[in-house]
């Protein structure tokens, strides 16, 4: 597995190449600025990628750190999917409690109090007081809307 710095510079290069490629499918007026900006972007990121490939520095993170990173990103993904499925009012408090209890091994009452606090803020402050309806989640939307 190449080092992270090589991966990110390669990824940026790939993104620019893809965006420039897509720009050629736009109408002439629409593609002008994406090409004017994108082509120099390809050049610069290619330079950076080349520099990283040939750099002698090695800043590889420990496998332990990478594992913790992946775990945290996994939790972030769970938050995103949970909120998309169950919304902010019901999904977010449960996710907060789950994260506290399972990831940080907090006490169960800490998790419960945090869950209650999140629910109160999201429902009473945002929905009731300010009057903004928060996203209810795709599952509830499908079932009841």
């Amino acid at each position: 597995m190449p080092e992270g710095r090589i991966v990110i510079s390669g990824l940026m290069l790939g993104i620019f190449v893809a965006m420039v490629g897509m720009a050629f499918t736009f109408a002439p007026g629409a593609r002008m600025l994406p090409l004017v900006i994108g082509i120099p972007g390809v050049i610069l990121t290619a330079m950076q990628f080349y520099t990283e490939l040939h750099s002698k520095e090695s800043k590889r993170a420990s496998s332990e750190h990478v594992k913790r990173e992946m775990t945290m990103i996994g939790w972030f993904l769970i938050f995103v999917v949970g909120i998309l499925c169950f919304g902010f009012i019901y999904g977010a408090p449960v996710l907060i409690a789950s994260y506290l209890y399972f990831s940080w091994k907090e006490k169960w009452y800490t998790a419960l109090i945090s869950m209650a606090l999140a629910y109160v803020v999201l429902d009473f402050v945002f929905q009731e007081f300010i009057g903004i309806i928060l996203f209810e989640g795709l599952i509830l939307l499908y079932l009841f809307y």
Partner: protein
Amino acid sequence: MHIDVALGSLYTLLTTPYLVMLMFIAVPLGIFFGAMPGLGGKIGIVLLIPFIFGMDPIPGAVILLAMHSVVHTGGSIPSILFGIPGDGTSTAVVIDGYEMTKKGEGGRALGASFGASGLGGVLGAVFLGLMLPVLEPVILAFSPAEFFLLAILGITFIATLSGKNIVKGLSLGLFGLMIAFVGLDPSTGGPRYTFGQLFLWDGVHIITAVLAMYALPEMIGLGSTKNVTMKMGKSTRYKVSEVWQGIGDVFRHWKLSIRTSLIGAVIGLVPGLGGDAASWICYGHAVQSSKTPERFGKGAVEGVIAPETANNSKEGGALLPTLFFAVPGSSGMALLLGAFLMLGIQPGPTIVTENLDFVWTLIWTLAVANLLCVVILIGLTPWLGSLANLRPSLLIPFVLTFALLGCYLASGAWQNVGLIFFLACLGYMLKRHNWPRPPFVIGVVLGPVAEDSLHKALAIWGPSFFLRPLSLVLIGLIVGSIALYVWRSRKTGNFEVPDA
């Protein structure tokens, strides 16, 4: 100048208990709505309008304007403490304000923010008063040609904000511009980079971009270290002395504070450039004009002062076209305009001759509300410190939730919650490997303005729009900005790597 009318209005405002009470209600409300992530202050005005329905013009206008004028100050609180912008204009203060919090200087950052906001608000009001005689020619001097060039000037700051990592910085700046092209193309109306998704027709919101680069990667990083003893600062509560130190910083850097207040007021005066641009252009100016620009992005207090003065002074500027031409200077002002009409106030050129005392009451309301806001927030700051210094286990899930909430509320589309996952993972990798993030945000903020204005300028004048007098001045500034950067890098060698 009608000094008697001006002073008379101030005296009335301060000695009428009803008006003072309204300001005491309005200012905390404005702070509250401003601090809610992603909302911005407009919802506060919308909710307040039914309540002011039967009021007389002056009290109604006072409560609305007092609330509106402190919204951005409220917005700086979550920006500084958690890296979650309250609204689009509070995004610039995240760069250095949040870094200051991480270094344990959150109290000072908040103090600097409040002091800068207060000063900016007062100077914006003064500017408003002084500009009364020369209003029309100044407002009408700026056209899409000048907006385009101002946006380009702001974009040249990308180089300065890149520090040593010029290639990385420029790449990310260009990436920010490419992200700004997501949406409908202004010249053909055709969708670009939308992948058939309607929610992307309006582009990627600036708050989504900033959350993906700051708050969310920080939380991923914090969660990855799993250091339970780590705190975001040395102490759990901010001392009032730290806050006063921050306020003092605003006066220590008085030249910068005055300059950015004026730049903000002028940008606010000219409808079309947008409030987000004001804070970023002033941030860029602070970096450029500093003798030690390498400190920016790592917790430089000037990085808090510059955007915060501009945020509040621009409201004074924006009030001008709203009152005198009935043309709103910002989207918030558009709401206020409707409310003013409802209260029986007739904006237009005659407002100066027929209602000068009303105009001065509004000017003083801006100033007094900003000062009142500073006083209230100084009192609140120690308690705010407790929030920022929660242990990571508690901080992370709440920040994640409110960041995702802010992203949803800013754009109004749930699909952005999914989009931000990918952007934030990218943002985390960029942060991990020292790609400077401020240039990306500048690209996202100024890209739409630049393209839209370029399209309009070309449609109105053709390529000769560059030859307009004010355009030539701005081109000179752009060339000067680039030359200054080149000269500096040659003179001082490389800057230190900004860990932004």
